[in-house]
């Protein structure tokens, strides 16, 4: 269970241009389930995912992961949390230009001291499942939008993290690829993992695998349905 208690995030706090990106959100997210956030642009979805994924700190409120209080921990503990708990698909992908697709996908595994051949085999299997096997050696800046999106998904899955956080993972995918992604999400859930996503796409909200849809507006939760 991931619990948020009265979480608020202010950008530019106390300065002109202060933004209340997340406003007093309290919320519980089930483990072993797929939860989707929806809402208009600027409603605070990405910010909320950053807070849940220990990438940003709330300005106020508390975040607990399986009962562990993570808000307010120093950055070095948060890194440990990110490494052991989360896989991320960023809205802007955040792949490293100049490196090959395979190098990008194996990036999260580099500091773990695993056998590089095993990591590579795992990465290639992921790329295969996402229809990218032929592009492993290509520098990521040459990939198309949809390929880049899938590269980001493959990277998020490489460490078999218990929680996948995906920010608009299907924004650049066609129907066929969206269904393939949803199949992966279903498989992850069946393995006992947690998936938390944002999406503008009704095909996602209505998908069989999705357990809960939460809608946001102006940094607040305005609706929640299972």
């Amino acid at each position: 269970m991931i619990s948020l208690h009265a979480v608020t995030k202010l950008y530019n706090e106390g300065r002109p241009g202060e933004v209340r990106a997340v406003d007093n959100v309290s919320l519980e997210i089930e483990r072993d389930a797929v939860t989707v956030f929806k809402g208009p642009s600027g409603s605070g979805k990405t910010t909320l995912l950053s807070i849940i994924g220990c990438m940003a700190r709330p300005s106020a409120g508390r975040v607990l992961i399986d009962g562990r209080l993570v808000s307010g921990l120093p950055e070095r503990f948060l890194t440990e949390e990110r490494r052991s708990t989360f896989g991320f698909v960023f809205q802007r992908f955040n792949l490293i230009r100049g490196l090959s697709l395979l190098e990008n996908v194996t990036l999260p595994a580099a500091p773990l001291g695993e056998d590089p051949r095993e990591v590579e085999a795992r990465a290639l299997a992921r790329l295969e499942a996402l229809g990218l096997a032929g592009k492993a050696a290509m520098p990521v800046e040459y990939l198309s939008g949809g390929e880049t999106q899938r590269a980001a998904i493959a990277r998020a899955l490489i460490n078999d993290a218990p929680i996948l956080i995906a920010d608009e993972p299907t924004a650049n995918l066609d129907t066929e690829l969206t269904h393939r992604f949803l199949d992966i999400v279903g498989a992850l859930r069946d393995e006992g993992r947690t998936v938390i996503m944002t999406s503008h796409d009704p095909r996602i909200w209505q998908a069989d695998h999705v357990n809960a849809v939460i809608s946001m507006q102006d940094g607040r939760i305005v609706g929640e349905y299972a």
Partner: protein
Amino acid sequence: MTPAFRRQRALADYTLAALARRRGKNIGLVAIYALVVFVVASALLFSSALRHEADTVLAETPELIVQNLVMGRHDMIEGNAIAALAGIRGVTRAKGRLWGYFYDSVNGANYTLMVPLDPERALAPGEAMIGEGVPRARGMFWDTAPLFLSRQPGDLVRFDVVERLSSESALVSTDLILLNEADFRDFFRLPDGVYTDIAVTVRNPREIETIMSKAGRLLPEARFITRDDISRTYQKLFSWREGIMVALAAAALLAFAIFAAEKASGLSAEEAREIGILKAVGWNMTDVIAMKLWEGALISVGAFLIGTLTGYLHVFAFKAGLFAPILKGWSVIYPDFALTPRFDGVQIAALFLITVLPYTAATLVPVWRVAAADPDQVMR
């Protein structure tokens, strides 16, 4: 392979891939860096080799040399002066030295011919020991090749080379030819009982003034040269050149400091974003810093090796050719002067400390600052 080793290996692999991305920029960086190391290394190696030459010369110089003057010019000295000098209180030894210069017109080379003072080096008639520069000047390539010296056309004297002197000092022994006393006298057509000068060893160097004044009364015509006089001459010869080298090294280090400070002042937006991404995907601060250490080490150790090696070659193989304008005047005294290669571990270690460490430290400062921040903040 242990996980710790595999982790370092993976981080180093990442570093290499990252460096390869900005190949042009990084090659330029290593080139500038290596140039600085090259200048500092050249200056350092050169001045220390100079100092070593001077020390070696002085170590082999007796405390006092007595020369005969005729009309104010150095001339041969009579052997009976030796006994007179040896009789002075405080003198432990007085020995007549035989040495002279010979210009080999065939090869256009200058040699110093000398009879060894050291009885252990005494040579049999017809034998010679030669310095390293001699076979080089004459193109004698195999070890047993005899040495032929010619004073005038048609006249050839043959010597069997029994040993090549390994040169601790280029100044002292490169152009040296050691001969038997009888051969020497014969070669220069010297009568018995005269010497080039007399080398005097004293028991206590502080008595040298007293001994000199006593000797001056015995030999009013003679000129006395102390080791201090020679040392002062060398100081004049070496010290300002060494000073210039130090100034040059200081200037290069200053340039390097500016360069390192620039590095320490901050990362580009792209570099910062990259660190943010690495942290977001689970790298911790130690991973990021270890990776940047690899980067700093690859660049600085690479530049260090290139700079030191080229500096070494420059000084010892190419006679510090790039410093030639500064060193003008040098070549008049030593027509073909090459410094003896020396490898001084302490010096190389010092060079390493002043170039590699500050750079690596300088690169880590901004990295640490970025790596300590929330990834969300640096990634946007």
